């Protein structure tokens, strides 16, 4: 399936784009996560990387739909 992904902070620096479309095999968050790790090994250097789906933190087993708004959330540092 095709995932439309927003990136922020250091994840944007690593992926090189604010928004991108990735083709993944499988339809779960974990499948996207594996695809990202393979294509962008620098993501492994982060303290953590959450994936948000439709503006909510998502679990690895969650299924994705084409219309989902997906975002990469590297360690937050507000305040």
């Amino acid at each position: 399936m095709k995932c439309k992904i927003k990136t922020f902070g250091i994840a944007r620096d690593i992926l090189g784009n604010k928004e991108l479309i990735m083709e993944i095999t499988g339809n779960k968050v974990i499948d996207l996560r594996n695809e990202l790790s393979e294509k962008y090994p620098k993501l492994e250097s982060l303290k953590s990387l959450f994936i948000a789906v439709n503006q909510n933190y998502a679990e690895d087993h969650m299924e994705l739909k084409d219309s989902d708004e997906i975002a990469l959330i590297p360690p937050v540092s507000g305040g």
Partner: protein
Amino acid sequence: MINITENPIEIIKVIDAVAALGAGGLNVFIGNVRGTANGKTVRWLEYEAYEGMAVAEIKKILDAATLRWGLLGCAVSHRVGTLKPGETAVVVAVSAPHRKESFEACEYIIDQVKVKVPIWKKEVFENGEEWVEARPQMTIHSN
């Protein structure tokens, strides 16, 4: 009141937003940009937010705090964009019937904002820049 803004935060407006009849205690936390990080001089910070989700996450935090401490009002205003040392990055205000609850709730809210809300800051030094908290080897920063 939940607010993500590029403009300087007007502290008194955040405080006014939580005023409530019956509120004996208001507590306000103001987080300012510090001029040094790990001994290095900070020239400025770049803040960015995933705005829609940031507002939604802040709302969850405020709802939880309101339920737990019986708050009469609560508000968070967070600035994004370029901030220089001394400028205000975040203001949290709560009002409660009594003071103890106002302190506990306000501290809970800022603690949660710092770990849950999708906002990021990059420190810009004389010789380089660094996303705060991003990598395991980095020292923990906090204001």
